[in-house]
């Protein structure tokens, strides 16, 4: 056999390597995939369930431009650029930043490609991944890890949608809308959160659906909130699975009208790693559902198993949070309704007070349902199914199911308060201008009637002047520019000033 020349060998090798790289790239490399934006108004999630009418975002059509964010650039810069109605699409990559959204109707959408998620990594140095104060905010398809404070925190944003996010170890809370009305938290997976993975705080009309929460101190917490539906969630291996609380000392004082329905509340036996002093640090490990001081809570069709302390604990504030005190917080859980639930293997290893109380009953197990302290009007559909403690005063439930309540969200988005142009002009005049201008007297600036005389029938003249004042009068100090007012407010106030009679 004749030996190949070294030259041919090298050529062959190069060709083979080249072919390998080509094949490798085409099989494993970044494919140029066209992605389709999910419409913001995704209406049906479980299309085969005829009565699933979860409207994610109502009629709010995605109306603006699409801003794309690729690895290496900043999501916050896109938010700065965005206007209400815009969609920000974030491609796979690692984004170590704090994104704050102080605008209305902004959608932030991660694009997952080939299993690669756009990932916000706080590196245990950054406080929060997303902070929003705007209304109509959508945040979906993000992986959020290693923040110090929160994954997603909202302050007073209404009509929010937070879904399909994968959140691991983001500090105190995973998803925390606060002071919001009408929101959806759905299809999120959250773990290793040191307080509540999903914390609905001082909100109204929120649905928490189809989430998986595990390895947290608290799975899903409804606190000082009203009209909340917690359905189809899988809460496992938290210290406590599902919670409905009143925390005293907050400006909003009540929790009522909460439904826990069709959830899996399983093996919530994680040791408590909550921060000392926090309310959840007092939750005993092995708590399935905890109802503390909340009223009108319905527990229906849940699978509640393997929680080592109790399946369901119902307590008043004096028992559950004896240190806190607030004369304005009513501390009794009233009118709790327990409907059909599957409960077994709860209370296998009770701790603390429940263990002590059960020992007085000659029982080393915790019960499926444990009630202690004040409260009235509570009922249960079939008490004989469960091992219970403290339900002597419970009557028979007056309802058998809640099928007529498909959602707790409002029938239409909470409208922004609409102020007419005239009213906006009035608010701006009295709220801002009146510090220096008044009818009939000289304050710091010229009297209002002089402004009228100068700019008669010319509101644009006033708009131009207040945006960039030129000092026209030697006997008056120079007016500071009012360019911070919106164009709308500037024109409204200009017209208002010209219309004033006295």
């Amino acid at each position: 056999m004749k030996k190949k020349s070294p030259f041919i060998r090298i050529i062959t090798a190069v060709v083979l390597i080249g072919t390998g790289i080509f094949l490798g790239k085409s099989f494993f490399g970044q494919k140029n995939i066209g992605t389709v934006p999910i419409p913001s108004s995704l209406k049906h999630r479980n299309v085969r369930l005829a009565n699933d009418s979860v409207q994610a975002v109502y009629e709010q059509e995605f109306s603006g431009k699409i801003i794309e964010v690729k690895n290496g650039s900043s999501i916050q810069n896109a938010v700065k650029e965005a206007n209400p109605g815009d969609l920000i699409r974030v491609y796979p990559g690692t984004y170590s930043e704090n994104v704050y959204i102080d605008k209305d109707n902004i959608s932030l959408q991660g694009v997952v490609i080939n299993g690669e998620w756009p990932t916000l990594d706080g590196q245990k140095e950054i406080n929060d991944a997303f902070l929003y104060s705007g209304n109509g905010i959508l945040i979906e398809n993000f992986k959020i890890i290693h923040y110090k404070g929160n994954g997603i925190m909202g302050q007073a944003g209404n009509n929010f949608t937070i879904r399909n996010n994968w959140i691991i170890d983001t500090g105190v809370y995973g998803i925390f809308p606060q002071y919001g009305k009408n929101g959806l938290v759905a299809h999120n997976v959250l773990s290793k959160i040191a307080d509540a993975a999903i914390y609905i705080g001082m909100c109204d009309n929120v649905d928490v659906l189809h989430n998986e929460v595990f390895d947290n101190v608290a799975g899903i917490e409804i606190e000082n909130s009203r009209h909340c539906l917690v359905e189809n969630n899988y809460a496992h291996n938290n210290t406590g699975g599902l919670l409905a609380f009143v925390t005293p000392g907050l400006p909003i004082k009540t929790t009522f009208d909460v439904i826990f329905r069709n959830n899996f509340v399983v093996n919530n036996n994680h040791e408590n790693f909550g921060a000392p002093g926090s309310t959840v640090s007092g939750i005993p490990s092995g708590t399935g559902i905890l109802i503390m001081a909340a009223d009108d809570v319905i527990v229906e069709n849940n699978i509640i198993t393997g929680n080592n302390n109790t399946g369901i604990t119902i307590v008043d504030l004096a028992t559950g949070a004896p240190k806190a005190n607030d004369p304005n917080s009513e501390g009794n859980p009233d009118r709790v309704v327990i409907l059909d639930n599957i409960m077994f293997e709860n209370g296998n290893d009770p701790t603390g007070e429940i263990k002590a109380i059960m020992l007085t009953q000659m029982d080393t197990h915790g019960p499926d349902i444990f009630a202690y302290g004040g409260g009235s009007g509570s009922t249960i559909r079939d008490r004989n199914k469960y091992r219970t403690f403290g339900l002597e005063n419970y009557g028979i439930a007056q309802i058998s199911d809640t099928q007529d309540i498909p959602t707790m969200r409002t029938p239409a988005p909470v409208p922004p308060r609409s102020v007419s142009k005239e009213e906006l002009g009035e608010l701006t005049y009295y709220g801002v201008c009146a510090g220096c201008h008044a009818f009939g007297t000289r304050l710091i600036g010229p009297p209002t009637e002089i402004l009228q005389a100068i700019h008669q029938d010319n509101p644009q003249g006033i708009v131009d002047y207040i945006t960039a004042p030129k000092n026209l009068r030697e006997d008056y100090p120079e007016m500071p520019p009012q360019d911070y007012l919106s164009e709308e407010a500037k024109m409204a106030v200009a017209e208002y000033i010209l219309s004033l009679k006295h």
Partner: protein
Amino acid sequence: MKKSRVVLKIIISVAIPAILALVFFAGQRPTAYYPVPLLKSTCPPGFKLNANNECIARNLYSQYATTNKAGVGGLKSALPEIRDGFSPQQIDLGRYLFFDPILSVDQTISCASCHDPNKGFSDGLAVSRGIDGHKLKRAAPSLYNVGYLKKLFWDGRASTLEEQMLEPLFSQVEMGNTPENLLSTVNEVDNYKKLFAEAFPNKPMDEPILLKEITKTIAAFQSTLVSLNSKYDQYAHGYDQALNKNEIEGLNIFRSFVARCAECHTPPLFTNQQFAVIGTPEPEGLPLDPGAEIPFDDKSLRGAFKVPSLRNIALTAPYMHSGRFKTLRETVQFYTDGRGHAVPEDENLLIHWHIWEPNLTDYEMDRLVDFLKTLTDESFKPEIPEVLPSGLKVST
């Protein structure tokens, strides 16, 4: 008939009934007529006069929906309800009284002595001084936006301004007066008699000035001390450029759940008006102030104080109920030094759950201070009267 006679007839026929009417009405209400109204008939800035001669608060926060009565939330949240509806005359009379040392027993100090408009309606002292230099126990709180507050005093022991002001007026170590002495001195001042008649037009003529009228007018004035036009507010209403990069970073630290400032100092008023036990140290050598424990007779409120508003906070150093911290930076530092680190060893306070160990960096604390300074706004600072009805010198 001559022209002059006609004129004369007309003059006589008009003049006689006019003179009669004048005599008649003058006899009816001998002191009701004053040539010049001395009180303003227009509302202070931030208020609109309605048809019932009431001043109604109008500002840019009125454009937001009220989603909760507490008036707490985020950037574009409505404020809580304000005390308004006072007449311009009552407000203006309250302004005179506020600055008039006639209210104190020795006529040396006025409300403005401790709530000085040139010091953010506080006094720049760790704890205030009463008559004869008496050193008081707590710092004078700023009065900006006090019309929105539902609890007054550091320990929340009063729920209306009228109720609140009785204490400094009649405390022997503050203004030192008594109701009897106050009423007799004020009723001796003719100017005040005229002004009260003007501010309370339905008041019977022979009735002396009443204590409840004095407190109502001062409350009316205090309720108009509004500060809602800071750089922060411009940002909140939608002007992105109102805050610079450092200030926005500060805002984000302020509202994040690590520092948790905004959980109690909730916008838009920067207080949620609740009690909190945070365990701040007292000035050297002073015992722990039990705070709200005393008025509410509740051990769980030991060391609790009302969360103060942070508006105009940069103007009102030193900080905390007894002025222990001289600067904002020191104050911010307190919150990251550890839960309960300054609580005396023999005390077992129920420290608020939001007080924890956020491990803020020096950089973050500097940014928080940057942000706190954006809450300053004195654009509606009221005019200090040049002359007082009592003839006394304005004391601040």
